[in-house]
């Protein structure tokens, strides 16, 4: 039951992010939408490695007496490594996007995407 909730929330976050990207006109809201969407993906990814009542995926005799018991109970360490990488990448994207927003505001005096369109003249 609780496991299912993770995935539902993750999908809701992704959907909210995509909605934001499609229908919002403010650049900052677009950046927020992007961040919310990737957070949804991260939640999805990290939930996949989790198991209820799991143990730390470091093999030692204190954590689990035998290898088979360890394999049966430990959480999957791979998604944790992946999600860490992905979070760092998305911080880069958000930082770059925000700095571009600052420059856009200096040039155009607005963050409305319908008014930032000199290229199409």
């Amino acid at each position, binding site marked *: 039951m609780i496991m299912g909730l993770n995935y539902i929330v993750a999908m809701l976050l992704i959907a909210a992010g995509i909605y934001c990207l499609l229908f919002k006109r403010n650049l900052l809201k677009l950046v927020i939408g992007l961040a919310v969407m990737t957070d949804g993906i991260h939640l*999805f990814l990290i939930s*996949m490695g989790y198991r209820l009542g799991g143990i730390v995926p470091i093999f030692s005799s204190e954590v689990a007496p035998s290898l088979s018991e360890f394999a049966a109970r430990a959480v999957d360490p791979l998604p944790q490594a992946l999600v860490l*990488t*992905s979070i760092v990448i998305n911080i880069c*994207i958000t930082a770059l*996007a925000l700095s571009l927003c600052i420059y*856009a505001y200096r*040039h155009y005096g607005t963050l409305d995407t319908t008014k930032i*369109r000199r*290229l199409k003249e």
Partner: protein
Amino acid sequence: MIPHAPILVIVLPLFTAFVMPLIGIIAERYHIKYLRELIAIGVMIVVLILAGTIAQEVWNGEVIVYELGGWSPPWGIVLAIDALSTQMALMIAGLGTLVMIYSASYMSRDSGLSYFYTLMLLVISGMMGIVLTGDFFNFYVFLEIMSISSYALVSFRRDALSIEAGIKYLIIGSLGTSFVLLSVVMLYGVVGTLNIADLGAKLATYGGTNVPSVLVLSLALFVTGVMIKVAMVPFHTWLPDAFTAAPTAISALLAGPAAVVGIYWVARLPYLPFGMPVGLILVSLGLISMVVGVLMALMQRDFKRMLAYHVISQKGYMVLGIGLGTLGATLGTQGGLFHLLNHSTYKALLFMCAGAVLYQTKSQKFDELGGLGKNMPITALTFLIGALAISGIPPLNGFVSKYIIYLAGFQAGMPWITAIAVVVSGLTLASFMKAFSSVFLGQRPQHLQGTREAPKPMLFSMIVMALICVAIGLLPALGFNIIGPAAEAAKNTSSYISHVLGGT
């Protein structure tokens, strides 16, 4: 092959990229001119040589599997290099070197050049990683390295237009890479592996009939993500803006080498056994992009914007070719990959010519230009070679690959595809003749009387590109020596899988 060459071609540009600001400080303190440029070009030449040594080994029928940290394939991250990756790596290194030489003089009037070369080398490193890696998540990481650096490069000059284009590219591009990430996550959830060879082997056990429906969603997300990066028509809106507003050296880099990356995955994808008709999707997307791209290009009044729409149209040819290849036309894959090789040379050349004109006249609008053929004879000549090559005129390279794609249309039993491709080719010629006459022929405006020929490093890159176009056109065997093994490798997934999983 030099030991560790596969990882060196990725790590060397990556490392130099982050040392570059330091080199910039040294160059400014001791007033050493062109230190940054020379080091960047030097690194690219070393990468090209390393890629060459890898290529020799791969063309002898090997699949090089390089284990990072010594962890064996299904568990550790591996670099797996077959003939397809080799073609891409050689193209990235070769064209990257020429673009680097070009930008040494094209960017000489800008400030903040240390950061420019940092970003350029990061893009190269990311592209190399994408084509050499054998791991899905690793692919995503390199894709982001390449994408983030190219967002920053597009808005490098920070004027109103390039910021606008950069934001557009960033939002659409990040949506695409997020889709790729979600797709990778779903694949891992269902299949439980990230190694591409292992993934292929495990997907094959479904036998193409009993595929879980999550995989369909995963495939759809992946195709959407890759198509955004390739800029096929429904997802193409970022490309004309980005290519128009970016410094021209960047447009050449993104049009030439970076086109490689998306097409590489388009070529790999249909042969991963998802059990879905990817070929039909590719053919229809390719056809739409071809037609829409060329029609939009005919309407443009801006030099670089016109070239950008032709990028979309030409990528349509490649995707079409590769799509036909999966529908029974064995020539299709060859044609698509060959067209990629040719497209990257002549489109980078055309952008360089547009950049040379922009550099000397400060204008890229057709209405403000004219009669420059007398002032810039070499630029005009190389542009003409590129224009004829892209239109598929016989003694040049564009003809060879387009002809193979035409034949593939017949081979797949769909001659109407060939008819459309020929018409698009004619429209391309029309559009380029208009561009050539309005820039290099006709009345020369008063203020352009004193225009001079482009600087020598720019001319050097342009002449080398033009020579490649002519050489492959006259001796298609040169191209086939690279394309033949690559097309074979794209289809022969079982050899790839057995090499990666069997080799220790």
